[in-house]
């Protein structure tokens, strides 16, 4: 029999840890924004983001994509560790005991509450070894130079590392659509490196996300 009292052993019912009004706090007298654990948060002004893109482009040219991608990976590594730590603390149990539903929903809420847009997972091609990630309303690609090339290199890095650490497999991430080239959102594909190899050429030749996915799935 289900015992309601047993379900409430410590009286807690963990919910949305990242609920916006709970998560973002501050020591305003010190001029600090903080999250609910007291870790520092920072609001980045849009012109600063634009300045970073523009400065990198001026100093490094084409290499700026690689620089941002590496920054994204660095960010992702730390983000993953902190995210897991926060969740384990909140749920008061090792992360391995947490269900995938709670984990991924927390990830989506975390992303949103930090103001990085809405992140969604697309599992249509999961059986073929690909995981899709969509980011809507990205502040990063909104501030990036607009053109023909995807510009979500920061996000590509963070997503790649996040899911590599989550799955324990060395995943690669490729971007197929981007708001910086007038697509509706940023789309990424995660998979093993050799299976994603053809993607860059297809993106460069202007193929759309759906067409790229078709080709990837057909090549088996």
């Amino acid at each position, binding site marked *: 029999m*289900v015992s309601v*009292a047993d379900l*409430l052993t410590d009286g807690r*019912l963990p919910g*949305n840890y990242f609920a916006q009004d709970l998560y973002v706090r501050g020591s305003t007298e010190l001029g600090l924004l903080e999250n609910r654990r007291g870790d520092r948060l920072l609001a980045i002004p849009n012109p600063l983001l634009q300045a970073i893109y523009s400065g990198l482009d001026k100093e490094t040219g084409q290499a700026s994509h690689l620089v941002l991608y590496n920054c994204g990976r660095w960010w992702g590594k730390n983000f993953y560790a902190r995210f897991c730590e926060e969740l384990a603390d909140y749920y008061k149990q090792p992360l391995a005991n947490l269900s995938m539903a709670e984990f991924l929903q927390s990830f989506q809420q975390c992303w949103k509450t930090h103001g990085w847009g809405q992140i969604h*997972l697309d599992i249509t091609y*999961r059986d073929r070894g690909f995981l899709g990630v969509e980011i809507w309303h990205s502040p990063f690609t909104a501030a990036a130079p607009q053109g023909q090339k995807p510009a979500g290199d920061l996000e590509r890095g963070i997503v790649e590392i996040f899911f590599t650490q989550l799955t324990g497999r060395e995943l690669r991430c490729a971007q197929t659509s981007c708001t910086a080239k007038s697509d509706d959102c940023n789309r990424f594909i995660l998979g093993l490196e050799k299976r994603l190899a053809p993607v860059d050429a297809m993106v460069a030749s202007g193929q759309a996300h759906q067409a790229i996915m078709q080709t990837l799935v057909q090549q088996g």
Partner: protein
Amino acid sequence: MTFKLDTLFDEPDKHYLDANDLSTLSQYVSSIPERMAVYRTLRDQEVAVMQPIADALQQQGGHAEALVERSVRNGLMVLRYAAMAMLLDDDAFVEDRLQGWLPEMVKAYETQAIDQQLFQLLNRQLSKLFSPAQVNLIKPSLEKAQSLMLDTRETVTLAGLL
């Protein structure tokens, strides 16, 4: 916090509160003792309210234990948030806190059908426990939570990933 009365307190730079504003405030203040009484009952009777519902879901509904546990957890969570919303007289509180969370969990664990039954049983329990006037205090937040839970249009399914 999205306390409904916040809007009253937001504008001292513009003007003093007028008679209508003060009357809103005074209505809220005079309703507090009743809200607290209902809140206390819900708090103290949490297990007593929910246990018969869990039993009914399992025995009459014939649902598996794990599913009943999941649904009862949803019910407990909704009731706690609804109780707080009632204390604050703010239905939006339920929405702010549960949106982006509870509907996704309902979908991921496929508890829609059993949750419906749980809500029916819950309403019956509450009408046994409270006067109609008291039920009306908590009802708007409960209904808000219920419609939120069953409306999963915008959510991305995680169910296939589990």
